[in-house]
């Protein structure tokens, strides 16, 4: 009985498999039947974004409300706000089921390019021109909304750069100055370590947080060319500058520049800024959206905080005005055509209005517009904006910019660098292998 039972069980597996293999030849095509929501009868535009609460909600919702009130297109936009955490997965599920929303935001970069390649975003060069958005948004913002020479999205609400927040009280206490070179930064760190203070608050469980150190080190050491070359295949991630950045990170780990257990600290659980609030850490390299985080968490603490851009590497002639970050943060893409596209774009164009920009500023954001300077009053935001405007170029976060599967390898290996469980050579070789594989498949 038992033996028969098992025979049958294996048989059942075999049946399932043959069934599938037999079926796969015939119906493989229609698994991905595309969205049909563009039907002309429907006058509702669905718009997905991450504006579930607070500042994001206020900034993203503004354009929708303004559009619904003022438009004479006959369309109405229905905004669907989705939790940031699983937003990307959610979008994939929707797209693969042919239920892609008419408008949706993304962080641009690699995933946006996938959406475009798969036909879920329309080029909007003409509309962009027509609404004069070229003159309103910063060039870097428009550049991040573009792919293969066409504009595919409208930037929305924030300029965010990688930079170092620091506690001015702690700096004053130990007589420290804002460092302008890496050796000065290291001197600052050494002083802090001697006094029992962790130089950098960092929670590296989600991996992208530590990756900012790597990105900044590479950019200051060698500029952006080696990275661009590595991505397009003319260069390599095994180039010296990547190796140097990896070694630097490991040197800093060993010197105690980061909190203990850095790879298990959870950024989403606030474990990095916790160290800042407890004043056991003095600096934090992170995205400048943290101005909003600090100021809403504790206005008193925010008084103690200041910001500087990542310092220059001694002896390197790399352009120090280069910035890592995003100019726009969220970008609206359009998955509709004709009249509907016109209406959807009209809605998105409200992000460029003066009123919308004011809403963004009021919510602690820096609008990615040329006019932002006259609006922003917060001293740290002004510094960030200055850095953004002065940048010869701004590289989008690597983990956004790279194709997702390559980005994943970068994040994994970079985390291992922090854990000292992988040498820089191994990390670079792995990343290069992933990049080559991706380029070969393309």
């Amino acid at each position, binding site marked *: 009985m038992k033996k028969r039972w098992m025979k049958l069980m294996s048989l*059942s597996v075999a049946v399932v498999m043959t069934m599938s293999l037999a079926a796969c030849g015939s119906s493989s095509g229609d698994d991905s039947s595309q969205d049909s929501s563009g039907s002309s009868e429907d006058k509702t535009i669905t718009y997905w974004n991450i504006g579930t609460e607070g500042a994001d909600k206020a900034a993203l919702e503004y354009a929708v409300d303004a559009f619904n009130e003022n438009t004479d297109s006959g369309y109405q936009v229905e905004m669907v706000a989705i939790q940031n955490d699983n937003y990307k997965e959610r979008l994939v599920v929707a797209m693969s089921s042919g239920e892609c929303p008419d408008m949706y935001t993304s962080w641009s970069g690699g995933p946006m390019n996938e959406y475009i390649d798969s036909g879920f975003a329309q080029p909007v060069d003409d509309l962009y021109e027509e609404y004069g958005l070229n003159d309103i948004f910063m060039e870097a913002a428009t550049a991040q909304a573009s792919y293969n020479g066409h504009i595919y999205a409208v930037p929305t609400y924030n300029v965010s750069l990688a930079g170092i927040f620091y506690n001015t009280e702690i700096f004053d206490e130990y007589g420290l100055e804002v460092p302008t070179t890496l050796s000065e930064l290291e001197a600052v760190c050494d002083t802090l370590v001697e006094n029992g203070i962790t130089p950098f608050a960092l929670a590296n469980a989600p991996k992208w947080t530590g990756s900012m150190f790597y990105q900044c080190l590479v950019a200051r050491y060698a500029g952006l060319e080696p990275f661009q070359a590595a991505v397009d295949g003319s260069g390599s991630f095994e180039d010296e500058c990547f190796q140097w950045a990896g070694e630097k990170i490991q040197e800093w780990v060993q010197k105690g520049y980061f909190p203990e257990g850095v790879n298990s600290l959870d950024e989403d659980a606030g474990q990095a800024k916790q160290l800042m609030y407890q004043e056991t850490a003095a600096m934090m390299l992170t995205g400048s959206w943290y101005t909003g985080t600090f100021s809403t968490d504790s206005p008193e603490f925010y008084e103690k905080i200041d910001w500087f851009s990542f310092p220059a590497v001694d002896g390197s002639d790399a352009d120090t005005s280069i910035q890592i970050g995003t100019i726009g943060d969220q970008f609206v893409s359009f998955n509709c055509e004709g009249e509907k596209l016109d209406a959807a774009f009209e809605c998105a164009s409200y992000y460029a209005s003066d009123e919308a920009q004011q809403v963004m500023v009021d919510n602690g954001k820096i609008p990615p517009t040329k006019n932002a300077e006259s609006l922003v009053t917060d001293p740290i935001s002004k510094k960030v904006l200055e850095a953004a405007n002065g940048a010869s170029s701004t590289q989008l976060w690597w983990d956004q910019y790279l194709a997702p599967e390559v980005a994943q390898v970068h994040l994994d290996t970079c985390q291992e660098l922090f854990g000292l469980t992988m040498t820089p050579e191994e990390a670079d070789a792995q990343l290069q292998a992933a990049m080559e594989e991706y380029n070969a498949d393309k």
Partner: protein
Amino acid sequence: MKKTKIKSRISWAIAIILAVAGLIIAIVPFIFMILNSFKDKFEMLTNGIFALPEEWSLANYKTVLEANFPRYFLNSVVVLVISLTILLFIAACASYPLSRMKFKGNGFIYSVIVACMAIPVHITLIPIFRMSQAMHVYDTIWALIGPYVAIGVPISVFILTSFMKSIPKEIEEAAEIDGCSRFKMFFKIMLPMAKPGLSTLAIYNGVTMWNEYIFAYTLTQSADSRTLPLAVWDFRGQYSMDIPMIMAVLTLTALPMIILFIFAQDKLIKGMTAGAVKG
């Protein structure tokens, strides 16, 4: 005689010490959770995690309960009750012929059902997502019932079949001689006798369904149709940095199940023992 008494005393002492140790391991994380749920957002960061709250403030709980929490709770209850009832009933139905009747294909059907345990459910997401849209149940709690029942079926049939096999055949044979029909036999004899197995399964599947989130996350969208595990996500998004608030949400999510278990465990055990005595 005396020696064995001492020996048994010592082993009891050891057993109790170990039991208490197990108790501590089981509940310390809970104490951590409940303690911190009363704190103010900054108190936990500055005073450390095991300090008693400066004030036993219910503010966090109030905020949670005033948000959409009660709706989530109600949705969870409705989904759980319906899915669990359907699941246990159809699983018992299927286990009866599988454990008791000789017919062609019995072994095969059983193997196929049990082999389904091996399926990584996450890959069924997209087909089920599409299906729920085709059936016009997407973004309602009804979309969850089908998948929840299906996820529970293989394990339930597996356990119930082996359970029913262990019920002595004599009782059934006696009933058959009395002219009892198969259907009557199922409702009058097998179902009551299977109670212990059903209770275990009710706990297992109930907990799984109560806590399931990947399907709930994918198949529902509006706040009106979401279930409790999503409350944790939603609050975490909204109060990502307010750890005590998250702890309050976690406590409130776990509480209904804990209360239910405390009250029902007596009945559950009774059900189990009743089945055993008859068996």
